């Protein structure tokens, strides 16, 4: 290669490498600000300020959703499988909201360690599958209840 071109190439490579390091360090320093939400372990560890608008996210705990029969109030727990946080929300939930699904909620922590949400977003994961496959998976995971389910189905079919 021509020496001038070699020199230019070195300059260009240094430029890109330097930039990459600068941006890398900046984003590393700002990582907590870039995170969209706090996870339940961070909240449990007390990293989250009380009464400041933040986002919290995680998985809706199985069997934790309690709907108030007289209003739109919903209470549930959000977990990352090592800690869990109770949440409260008044309003209409997105269609994908369900137990075992991810959510990201906007709101603030109150003094009692409850998260009062004013917006709840559903977080979708990267898994896509046809309904039949999902059903089959569900059946397989509930294999032990299969016999009981079949009995119940037969019963309801009889009526």
């Amino acid at each position, binding site marked *: 290669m021509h020496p001038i*071109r070699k020199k230019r190439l070195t300059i*260009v490579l240094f430029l*890109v490498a330097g930039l990459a390091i600068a941006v890398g360090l900046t*984003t590393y320093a700002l*990582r907590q600000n870039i995170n969209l939400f706090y996870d339940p372990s961070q909240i449990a560890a007390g990293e989250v300020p009380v009464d400041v608008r933040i986002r919290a*996210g995680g998985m809706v705990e199985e069997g934790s959703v309690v709907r108030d029969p007289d209003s739109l109030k919903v209470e549930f727990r959000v977990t990352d499988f090592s800690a869990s946080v109770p949440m409260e929300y008044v309003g209409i939930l997105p269609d994908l909201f369900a137990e075992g699904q991810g959510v990201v909620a906007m709101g603030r922590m109150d003094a009692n360690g409850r998260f009062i949400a004013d917006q709840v977003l*559903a*977080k979708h994961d990267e898994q896509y*599958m*046809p309904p039949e496959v999902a059903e089959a998976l569900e059946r397989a995971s509930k294999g032990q209840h299969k016999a009981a389910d079949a009995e119940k189905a037969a019963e309801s079919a009889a009526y």
Partner: protein
Amino acid sequence: MWQWFHKLGSPKWFFGIATRFMPWLLAGGLLLLAAGLTWGLAFAPEDYLQGNSYRIIFIHVPSAFLAQSIYISMAVAAVVTLVWRMKLADVFVKAIAPVGLVFTFLSLFTGAVWGKPTWGTWWVWDARLTSMLILLFLYGGVIALDRAINDEKSAARAVAVLVLVGVVNIPIIKYSVDWWNTLHQPATFKLTEKPTMPMEMWLPLLLSVLGLYLLFGWLTCIRMKTEILIREQRTRWVRELVMAGGK
């Protein structure tokens, strides 16, 4: 190898090659894209959670792929512009920057349309969405900077530097979903690992992605040929070409 490389830098040589490849790129691209989209939009099974709204993936993912690949190829061309001062590399950057802008916009737009029913919001300032928006602005900046400088050579160098500065954003887009907590889910369509979707969804997606790449190749050839004709209008081969009626 170097001889081939320098030949590639000749606008006349490229013009001929592009003319020869274009019909194949167009036919292949249209065929694959039509097959992928028909299969994906009409025949692939629906998703167990999202129902039919997930089908936007067949447009969203190919455009997002293109948006990033175009930027990477622009960065490679920018290095060639800066180091070898090859005119054709600059022609390439100028020809495809608007295409990249369109695909970036398309992926942001389809993502927003999908986000509303799925997440419950059109937009959220998470790392993936924000870095993609920065990519859109980078494309806009490249186009604007090129238009702002009249001198061809200084415009080429300024644009090349801007493109190289912006290339840092590409790994950020790619790994944003792994490095930080984001609302956007991690990649579904992966070439290196086992896909997290069944074959009857993955294959039409693959066809759409490949088809869009070929169509992009065709578009690149057309736009580069136009730019070459404008720049080389005073040369003999272009005059002869025009005299011969473009044959």
